[in-house]
């Protein structure tokens, strides 16, 4: 059943914070250095980022914000190290086995709404993630 664009899709949490495994999904243009960069003129593709990624293996491709700070420290926009620290301190249940990077600048909003967002959600739902934290640039 298609959802009205006026409603706010809200899923209540069913676990406590300390039991919840978090995945990161970002529109800040984050991807592995080994992956194909985003097309900055407009791109609806995403990149899968493994859960055990090292911060130094990540980079940003994005022309619509100044990412020089994120180039130095990816945690400015993709807090993978901070999330791991919280998991180690048992503040959260863990870090998901997969995260998603997206560029976020697109002229094809219909494709974004009808295909891309649902597919990205399905990917996350098929992981061990109980929750998602969304970030942008």
């Amino acid at each position: 059943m298609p959802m009205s664009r006026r409603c706010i899709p809200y899923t209540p949490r069913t676990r406590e914070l300390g039991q919840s495994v978090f995945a990161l999904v970002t529109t800040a243009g984050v991807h592995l250095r080994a992956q194909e960069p985003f097309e900055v003129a407009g791109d609806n593709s995403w990149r899968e980022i493994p859960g055990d990624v090292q911060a130094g293996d990540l980079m940003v491709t994005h022309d619509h914000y100044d990412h020089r700070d994120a180039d130095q420290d990816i945690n400015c926009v993709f807090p993978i190290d901070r999330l791991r620290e919280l998991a180690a301190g048992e503040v959260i249940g863990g870090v998901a086995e997969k995260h998603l990077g997206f560029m976020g600048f697109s002229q094809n909003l219909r494709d974004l709404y009808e295909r891309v967002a649902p597919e990205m959600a399905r990917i996350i739902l098929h992981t061990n993630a109980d929750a998602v934290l969304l970030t942008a640039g």
Partner: protein
Amino acid sequence: MVGIPTGLISIVPENSKQMGPPRIFTPKDFKLGNCLGGPFQVELQRKVLRDALSRWEAREEAGTLWEREYAEYTGYDDSWKKVLEEG
């Protein structure tokens, strides 16, 4: 499709709210590219993340926007450069 509880950290809440995010947290006056703070501002990044997660954890009305100021964020603090120089 079953949903998954999500929280958004946004520094442009006026834009983000148009999309109807279920939970939105805004560190006030952070510049673009500093969603959680500046480079190597570890304590600040940690604090912002903790605060965002606390909003995820709270059972409040869908679409509620929370904002918080962080006095330690200057936006143009370049002390991280010294950290890199000192190795």
